[in-house]
Every structure is written in C-alpha cells, then in structure tokens.
C-alpha cells in the first residue's frame, strides 16, 4: 500500500509555484482577528512526489478501462474517449456561469438541443438538465409533483408508493421531498403485485415511483394495467429511468403513460463514473408539469437563447445552470450515435445480458424468468449452507480479474448478485467471464473456506470493516501529527 500524502509530507517541500504574492503581504495588512491562526496542514511535497503518488494510487484501482465491470444497475460501459475532449474545449471549460446570455449562446444552444433530444427519446414535453445526479432528479421530480398538487389545491396527497425492489434513492428522495413512503411488496415473479397496488392506491397517493425495467432486470408484464390504475386514482406516475440503456430508442416512458422520468447520463450517456461522480440526472415531464420545472429554464426565441425563471417553478435545485460539462458529453454521444446507433446500443445491451444470462444458467438460480432486460439477478442464497455470502463470491470474482457484480441489491433477493454486462463488452469477454463464474461457483461448493479467504491477488485483502465503523478514522492522523 501507498503511504498517505501526509505520511509522505516533508515540511518545507514545495510543489507547483502558482501566480500570487508572498502571503506576508496579506498578513501585514489584514486585521489579526480575521486571519487564520491555526497552521494549514496540507501535504508538503514536490511535483514529482505528487505525480508518483497519484499514478501509484491509480494502479490500485480498477476501471472499465482496465477490467470487465459487470456491476448491475450501474451500466459500467465503455465511454468513448472522444467525449473526454468536449469538456476540454476552452469555450465551455472556461466559461463563467454568471455571464449574461449573450455571452453563452453556444452553451445555451447545446443544452437546448440536448433537452429536445432527450424529450424526444423520453416522449416528454419538457426536460430540465439541472439535477446533478439521479437521486437529485428524483427529488426534483417529487417536488414538481408536490407543486402540481398544490397548484390544484389538492393538499391531501402526502404519500408516495414505491416497490420494495426499488433503489434506495427512491424512498430517500420521497422523504426529502416531505412525503411518507408506502412500500409495495413484490409479487412472486419479482414484479409489482397488482392487488397490492390496488389496495395501496388512495386519495392520499401523490406519486407512484416505478423502476423500468425493474431492478430485477425485468419489464413488468402488467405495466400498462398499473399505469391505468394509478392514473385512475389521480396520482402521478414517476419512472426511475436509470436503466435507460435498456430501452433508449426502443420505448418511450411518455408513451407508456408516465408523467415524470429521470435518467442518469452517467450510466447510459458517456460520462464515466469517475469513482462515484460527477453525473447528471435530467428530468422529463409531460406538459401539465412543465411550469414547475426548476429554474432557470432555457428559452429559444428565433435564433437567440435566454434564461428565464418562471414564477411557477419549484425554484433552483442547485447553483447555476447544471453540470454543463457532463451534459455536453451526453449530447455528443447522442449526436455520434444517431438514430440507428441509439437503437443498436439498447438492442445489444439486451443481447449481451440475455446471452450472459443463458451462459450462466445452471450456476446459481436466477430471480425472474424468461428474457431479461439489460441485467439479471442471481441469488447466492443456497451457498449459505457452506457459510458463504454473495460478497464472498464477489471477492473470488475480483481475483479472477474482473470487477464484481452488484451484491446485496435489490434487497428483495437474498444474497443478490446483479449482473449487467452492457453492450460494449465482446462475446469473448462474456464467454470468459461465464466460464470463470462457473468455476468460482463450483469452488464455492467444493472448497468454501478457500473462497472465504479471497481475494488474494488484489493489493490488499479484506479490510476490517467492523473496526472501521466502530471507531471511525475519517481524516489522516498524520495530518495532525504534522502540526
């Protein structure tokens, strides 16, 4: 392992020499009470020290660029390198966000174009690009629903219905939006149970949030019926469209009857995840909800673009216009794909998932049946007999030279392993993975104690998570020693 920056720090060492003036100038002229008194404990290193540090850290990390990453629900696909160039264009990279619209016509045109394209792909009449991530999009959509009912004087709708298979952000966003959450238990097939839905719907229901395809990688077979039921109840329909990669260009949430949908550009639209972010979570809505979209909105008049903040808006949900440099990548990707490419991406995402599903059949039982969408979920529950968890298998998979599938999600499947290969992986990679996975499951049955010891080929073995949580050390102690 690599020592930390502070463990390497050498008092007095200098790195990059920036423009500026000696700090003494400030210190002699600024009143004492306003000045920082405590020393500034940042690492002191040469430029080479820093370069080596982060180059070495990068070697301790797996990405799509280095390994197959079958992480379900996360759509870890290849993001074309050309998209990394777009945020480097000086006209975007170095543009001040508080410039008057005259100074950002190119930006506004680009974002407006993206709104239009997404609106078209989602079957929605208006799109906001403001949300910074999927969960942020959810919150936005939920606040829009709140305003919508308020605008109609309907103050009794305080409840949001969410399937138990949903991503954790769904209920968490509902709560942040001030709603109470009612959980819809899944039926035997992992889908929403119509009877339960029927029972749960009431005049208190503001919103029903559905993930399509569901987190089991399944398209609800009764989706259109559910939509009709919800509409009949007067509630709005929200679609968590994080799994856009499964249906982009094939099916439009708007056409299915949804009122609100968010997508994650950092899954489907060419923003690498960057270790957890940045992303962005555009939200599309039907016309009746458009007045409530967050401000500012981009308006087009003739060839000129401007920003407006309608009174009906829920207000801004973040600073400035949005994560522009992320959004431009999404636009670039859609422009590169074109109509044909967009469809092919989704079709091949389905093909790869189904192929891998078929290749893995007979290893661990799958939750759900028939064709899957872009991902599928296996359960490692039966290995409980050998004292093993899905997480143990995951470590063996790391050792075999892959990133691991998503584990412990969706919560409704015990010892879930959620596998999403994405369309950018080759058949060869899937074949190799299937073979290795099969061997690992066999090993789990024949030699469970060995599996408990995995991984062995990673830079570290299993970290002690219990003691990490018991007495959390969240900042480097060496940073205090240095003072």
């Amino acid at each position: 392992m690599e020592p930390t920056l502070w463990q390497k720090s050498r008092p007095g060492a200098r790195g990059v020499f920036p423009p500026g003036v000696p700090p003494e100038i400030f210190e002699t002229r600024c009143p004492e009470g306003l000045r920082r008194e405590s020393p500034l404990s940042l690492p002191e290193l040469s430029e080479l020290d820093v370069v080596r540090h982060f180059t070495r850290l990068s070697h301790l990390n797996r990405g799509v660029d280095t390994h197959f990453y079958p992480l379900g629900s996360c759509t870890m696909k290849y993001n074309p390198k050309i998209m990394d160039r777009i945020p480097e264009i000086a006209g975007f990279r170095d543009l001040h966000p508080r410039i008057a619209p005259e100074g950002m016509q190119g930006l506004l045109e680009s974002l407006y174009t993206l709104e239009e394209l997404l609106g078209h792909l989602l079957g929605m009449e208006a799109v906001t690009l403001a949300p910074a991530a999927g969960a942020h999009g959810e919150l936005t959509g939920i606040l829009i629903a709140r305003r919508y009912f308020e605008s109609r004087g309907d103050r009794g709708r305080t409840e949001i219905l969410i399937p138990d298979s949903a991503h954790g952000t769904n209920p968490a966003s509902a709560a942040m939006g001030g709603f109470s959450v009612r959980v819809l238990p899944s039926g035997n097939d992992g889908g929403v149970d119509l009877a339960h839905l029927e029972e749960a719907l009431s005049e208190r229901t503001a919103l029903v949030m559905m993930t399509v395809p569901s987190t089991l990688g399944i398209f609800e077979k009764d989706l259109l019926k559910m939509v009709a039921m919800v509409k009949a109840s007067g509630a709005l329909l929200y679609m968590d469209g994080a799994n856009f990669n499964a249906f982009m260009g094939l099916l439009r949430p708007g056409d299915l009857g949804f009122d609100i949908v968010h997508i994650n550009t950092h899954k489907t639209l060419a923003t690498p995840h960057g270790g957890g972010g940045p992303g962005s979570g555009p939200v599309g809505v039907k016309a009746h909800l458009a007045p409530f979209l967050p401000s500012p909105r981009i308006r087009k008049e003739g060839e000129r673009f401007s920003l407006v903040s309608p009174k009906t808006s829920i207000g801004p949900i973040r600073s400035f216009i949005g994560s522009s440099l992320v959004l431009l990548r999404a636009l670039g990707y859609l422009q590169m794909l074109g109509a044909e490419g967009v469809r092919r991406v989704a079709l091949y995402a389905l093909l790869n998932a189904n192929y891998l599903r078929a290749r893995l059949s007979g290893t661990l039982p799958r939750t759900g049946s028939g064709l899957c969408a872009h991902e599928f979920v296996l359960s490692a529950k039966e290995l409980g007999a050998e004292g093993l968890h899905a997480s143990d298998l995951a470590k063996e998979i790391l050792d075999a030279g892959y990133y691991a599938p998503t584990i412990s999600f969706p919560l409704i499947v015990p010892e879930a392993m959620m596998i999403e290969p994405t369309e950018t992986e080759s058949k060869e990679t899937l074949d190799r993975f299937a073979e290795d996975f099969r061997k690992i499951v066999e090993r789990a049955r024949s030699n469970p104690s060995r599996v408990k010891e995995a991984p062995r080929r990673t830079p570290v073995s299993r970290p002690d998570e219990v003691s990490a949580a018991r007495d959390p050390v969240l900042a480097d102690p060496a940073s205090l020693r240095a003072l």
Partner: protein
Amino acid sequence: MADFIPHTESETREMLDLLGLDTIEDLLSVFSQSMPASGPPDLSPLGGGKDERALMEWFSSRGDRNLSSSRAVVFRGAGAYDHFIPAAVSALVGRGEFLTSYTPYQPEASQGLLQAIFEFQTAIARLYGMDLANASLYDGATALAEAVLVAVRETERSVVLLSEGIDPEYRSVVETYLEGMSVRVEVIPLEGGKTSRSALGKSVGPNVACFVGATPTFLGTIDQFEGVSDLLHEAGGLFIIHANPHCLALMKSPGEWGADLATGEGQPLGLPLSSGGPYLGLLSARKKFVRRIPGRLAGLTKDREGRQCFVLTLQAREQHIRREKANSNICSNETLLALQALVYMSLLGPEGLRRAAAGSWSNAHDLCSRLRTIPGVSLVNPDADFFHEFVLELPLEADDLSRHLLQNGILGGLPLGALLGPAWGRRMLWCATEVRSETEIARTVEIVRHYLVH
C-alpha cells in the same frame, strides 16, 4: 456512425442462436406487453450520426459562441472563480483507472480512490478547521442545504436563520430543499457588510435549528463571528459557516470561529469555471455529528495482513441501507472532482495555496483602490474588510457598464440589480483573483474610467 458495439456479425449470430432467436429485433419481445399502440418511436431528430471529427467541429463552433475566459478577461466571481490550475492536475485526474471506476464498494479493487477520498476528507477537514469532512456533495448550494437539514434533524426545530451574506441563489436552493418540510427560513440582515449582531440576537430562540453565516459574504466582505457560536449553543441551535476554501488559506476558518458544521463550494480548488458545473460540494463537521452527516465517508482500517487500507464506512446512514430514513438521498456525488481538488491542493501545498490566496487578495485590493479613484465610484461597505470581491456603487446602471466592458473583452463585475432588486441597479460585485495581471487591471480601470467620465 459509431456505436462502440464490439460484436462481429458472426458473433451476434452465435449469440442469437444460443438464445434461440432469429434476429436481434426479436429481443423487443421483452417489452411486448408494454409496447404502446403508437408504435416504435420516430428517431429521425437524432440524425445519421457523426464521426469524431464532425462532432468536434460541431462543439468547437458552439464553444466559439461563448465568451469564455480565453476571450474575455474575468473580473467576476459571485460563486465561480477564475484561478490558476497546474497542468499536472488533469494529467493525473484523467487517468483511466480513476475516470472509469465506480463508487469504491469493493475496497480490494478500489484502494486508489478510497485513499484519495480519505485524503480529500482530510484536506477539507484541515482547511475548514473541522474534525471531518465527507466525500463530497453536488455543489456548494446543495451542501449548504444538506447542512441545514442536518441541523433541522439534529435539533428537531423549525426555524433556520440565514445571513443575508449567503449568495441569494444559494438561499433559493435551500428554500427549494426545504419545500416539503415545515421549516421557516429567516434572513438576518447584513450591516455594513457584516451580519447584524442585534438582529441575530433577536432572532435566535428556542425554535431555531441553526444560523448560517458566510465568509466572505456574497458581497465579498469578511464577516466576523465572535460569540456567535456561544449564542447559538446556549439556545440549543447549531452554527454553520459557508466559506470559500480558497480564502481559507489565509482567513480565519469555520473551525476557529466555533462552527458546528461548515460548507463550501470546491470549485476554487483546481476546477475550471466549467460553464457552471460539475462543481464540488464541501461539507465538514465536528466529530459528534458524524452519524448525522450525508454522503459517503472513507475510513482508515487494516486488511487481514494488518496493512493500512481504506473502506467506505458508516454506510448505515446512507440511502442504499437506510432508505427513507437515510440522512440524505445522495448516491452519485462528485468524487472525480474531489480527486481533482485533492491533486490541486497537494501540488500547491500550504505555501502555494497561501501564495495564490494572497495574490487574489492583493489584486482585488489593487483593483478596488484604482476603481475608487474614478469620480462617482464608491465602495459599498467601506468599513468592512474584504477578501477578493467587493461591491462598487456607480454613477449609472451597472448593466450598461457590464455590456460595454464585454464588448471590450472584459467580463466585469456582476451587476447586482437582477439578483438583489432595483435598489442595487447601480451596484456591481467585482472580483480579481491571483491570475489577473497588472496590465489587465490597468486596462480595465482605464476602460471603466473612460466610459464613466466620457
């Protein structure tokens, strides 16, 4: 034209054969029950696709229609700052192993990012003078909103006091975030650029969850908080400071002012202006709030062989475990930008950061004193110290001057009328950072002078 699908025709065929399908279109049966009557979507607006070169031409020509800092010298801040960024930053942050990795849930395969997050948390905690920091939030505004939510939850109270020194757009974001809560936001006015102590004293009471101060304020002034911490704590509320991390290299830190929580926008730490995003929300806190705070946390631990290593910890606070009871709904955050800020801070080191901050301070003061020599121009809040931003009163509408400057390749101070109301129509919020040259300052002052004193 390109779709990044690696399959050869024969591979696709073999795969379909295994699945017993005729053509790839047969997979559409996945949706069959849900296929709307309207038929397949019309994709014509997406066009025929572009190759890399055509794509870059499209974007470059759009980029050319933006007055970025390469075409207009930036004397504007107001939440987004034009600072120096060393070349090594992008060389390191752009490495594929970082860029294309996911949230480090599998620690054995993610030590690089986990360690970087841990180091980022450390740097932010030290900069803000706090015990700990999280792995990032979306941006400064949402970080502030999340901090307010921590206070609301911790105190179970319903009044939030925000200093008028908070960026008014941030205040709106806080209000949006509180939309669904029964919480009232009250603004404590500034007096001469500092939070009115008497107004604050009057408002602090048993219903108050927190007071949030800003330093520098949105108007650039350095606010002062002696006794504020005690005032709040005695009333059972929390004290939050929103601070610009660049200025903290030299300014008294939130920790030194006795804050419980501190937030900031990380953009000044090595992120370009970026047309507004992605930015980097900073949140730091006293240790006792550790189980309250939102977002990811990387912690130090040991592996089975006793080697130092890192892991995401205290995940029970988070949405994927706690669901509707989670501290926040945040999932994806701004890790890559946290890494970027960390690389920036390590490259500059404490001395470099202090030097850059002193340069901003010095340039802003130079600009201010030169502009003040122009007849009819005066400094608003002359009795408050400022850091690298200041408000000037002009003899005419600020919008007019702003337009004139832009025509001369200068992004001048921000006209405040649109944000703060007509009373502020002749006021402009100027900023100068360490990268502004003496020539740029002199030229700008001359253009302003010439325009105002025709």
